[in-house]
């Protein structure tokens, strides 16, 4: 390019060193030829600054001495003739393998010096650290605070990506949200007496073996309204007897629930550890809910008989339990 030629002739005229002052006040004496390849410094030199210690080139605040030396290393290697392209590329590779803090600082410094090629190199290195990693890994690399509120995280990401991992996250968060809501309701219920304002439908389905995940069932029932009722026969585990039985049927229900969430054809690659944890949490919750099951059962049966037969759909759910009087 013609620009370096221009620089070199200028070098011959006015001596080989320039003085540069960084933001902390320290003044550095630098080879002019090398420093000139940084656009901002070059510009300053052209306007007559930097020839003596008293009038050094003042660099923008983002450039501290450590960064300056890195930048000069870069200039030194790249703009001095005699290195093959391969050598330059391997230098770039090594150069970009510094820790993230320094890389960010260097990018910032290069940007303030309008040093496009160096900005490009460091940006590429930073992009490499992001590409293909999970969000947790990226947060760890860059020390990002995991500060999206539960709400924000629980909002299914409206953006675009159909990445299975994001869909999984959505699903898990949706489940977690339900749990949170359920726990809240449980708390409320514990304060109020076991006043049940569920519809008869729900009660019947509660009886009919959607053991424990009554609230989940309600939502799943809602979902069913918009979909086919094919899941109903599946949600028919043996009638509840013991907490253990409840626990297993919970998992059974959980699986069918997952099918509901499966709006497309994506494989459920839930992390097994996470799945286990959630399973356990749901079990706990279910157990808590079912701890007063026998008393409930009495109440419901008595109230059910008073009200008479339920709507058609509930009898269709489980013919084995006869609600007719």
């Amino acid at each position, binding site marked *: 390019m013609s620009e370096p030629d221009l620089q070199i002739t200028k070098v011959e005229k006015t001596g080989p060193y320039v003085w540069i002052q960084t933001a902390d006040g320290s003044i550095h004496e630098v080879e002019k030829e090398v420093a000139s390849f940084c656009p901002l410094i070059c510009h300053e030199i052209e306007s007559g600054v930097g020839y003596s210690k008293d009038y050094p080139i003042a660099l923008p605040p983002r450039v501290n001495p450590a960064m300056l030396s890195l930048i000069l290393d870069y200039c030194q290697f790249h703009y001095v003739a005699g290195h093959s392209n391969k050598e330059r590329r391997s230098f770039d590779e090594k150069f970009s*393998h510094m*820790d*993230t*803090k*320094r890389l*960010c*600082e260097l*990018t*910032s410094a290069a*940007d303030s010096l309008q040093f496009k090629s160096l*900005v*490009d190199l460091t*940006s*590429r290195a*930073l*992009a490499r*650290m*992001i*590409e*293909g990693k999970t*969000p947790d890994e*990226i*947060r*760890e*690399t*860059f*020390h*990002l*605070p*995991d*500060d*999206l*509120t539960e709400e*924000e*995280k629980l909002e299914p*990401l*409206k*953006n*675009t*990506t*159909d*990445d*299975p991992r*994001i869909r999984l*996250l959505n699903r898990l968060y949706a489940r977690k949200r339900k749990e949170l809501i359920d726990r809240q309701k449980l708390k409320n219920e514990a304060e109020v007496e076991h006043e049940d304002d569920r519809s008869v439908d729900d009660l019947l389905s509660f009886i009919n073996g959607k053991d424990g995940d009554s609230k989940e069932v309600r939502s799943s029932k809602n979902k069913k309204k918009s979909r086919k009722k094919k899941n109903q026969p599946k949600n028919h585990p043996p009638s509840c007897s013991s907490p253990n039985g409840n626990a297993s049927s919970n998992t059974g229900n959980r699986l069918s629930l997952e099918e509901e969430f499966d709006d497309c*054809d994506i494989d459920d690659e839930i992390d097994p550890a996470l799945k286990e944890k959630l399973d356990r949490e749901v079990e706990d919750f279910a157990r808590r809910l079912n701890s007063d099951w026998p008393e409930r059962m009495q109440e419901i049966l008595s109230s059910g008989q008073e009200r008479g037969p339920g709507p058609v759909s509930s009898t269709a759910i489980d013919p084995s339990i006869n609600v007719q009087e």
Partner: protein
Amino acid sequence: MANSSGQDIVSDLPQSIIEIILTKLPIRDAVRTSILSSRWRYKWATLTQLVFDDNCVSQFNDRTATENKLVKFITRFLFLHEGPIHKFTLSTYYLQSSPDIDQWLLFLSRKGIKELVLEVGEDEWFRAPSCLFACLKLTSLELLRCELDPPPEFRGFSCLKYLNLQQVLVAPEVIENLISGCPLLESLTLSYFDSLALTVRAPNLKYLKLEGEFKDICLEYTPLLVVISVAMYMTDDKTEHFEQSSGCNFDKFLGGVPCLEKLTGQIYFTKYMSIGYELGKVPLTYDHLKLIQLYQVSFEDMKEILVVLRLILSSPNLQELQISSSSNAIAASEASDLNFWETDCPTGFTLKKLKTVKMSDLSGVPHEMEFLKFLLKNSPVLEVMSILPGIYVSCGKLNVVIELLRFRRASAKAEIIFIRDQM
């Protein structure tokens, strides 16, 4: 590689740098940064350079499902995007002509799109919707496998500098009007057209690349043209071309390009240029022409040799010449007009700047050898002449070398490098 201080520095970088970083990621990864932290939630949404391709979505065997996913991805992305979009590239095998693409283009036309690349589908050709012609801020347009039919009121893209059309179905007048309607056009590439007859009027055109079967090209007004690259195919029935074109093709093509610096011609280029040669006028001098590359020149056709000579002799500052021959010594008939080189060839002409000559696919036919002799005799500063024999020349190689040795060289520095076996 984490640092020990645990400070979040990267989020403090200016948005312009964050955008540079995000632009270097595949778009899917860029969008996923939205769940990293609260500050990163919408950093991706102001990206101005978008590249969508088949890697944006996980792919399934069911083509329709993948297509739907891709459509959903792009639509939702655009819906959530904020600010201008300068560059949009869509390169996909899955999408065919679809109403979604039309909507995206309408959206882009409202977002100040400047650079657009569309490569969609493989079976059907995508019909460019009229919204494309409403993107008046376009500076760069690249279309592949597309049908162009601009509305009658379309006057051209007044900011367009770069145009690349490949396998585009379009009426010739439309292309001509398009070119004329883009006064700032600097680079034009037309590939894989069938039987195109084109007159080019482009006052700012600097780079021209043509590839395909062209019936007739006339560079009527292209005064600033610097680089020309042509790969010209012809139909089998070559006589058809002889009848159809009128006038001298050489003049029509190279008659108005005084600033030419680099010329590359392939396949049937020299044959095309030789049509109507005898009708040629006084040749233009190409003072800036430094590099000439002519491939597949038939040294058995006298007219093609004349075209090559004319080009060389009209370029006083020529520095490098690369020629490949399409002759075949085995099939060559007796060379006629060999005394042309003695009698009619212009003499007293030196190629004062010619330093490098590369001749490939040499088969040793007499005209080829005479041509090399001519070059060696008239190039006082020649440094290197490389000769690569054609693949089919097996026993004739030694003869070629012997002949070459005899030729007189005007340049004391000239090295003749005979490259034996490439395989």
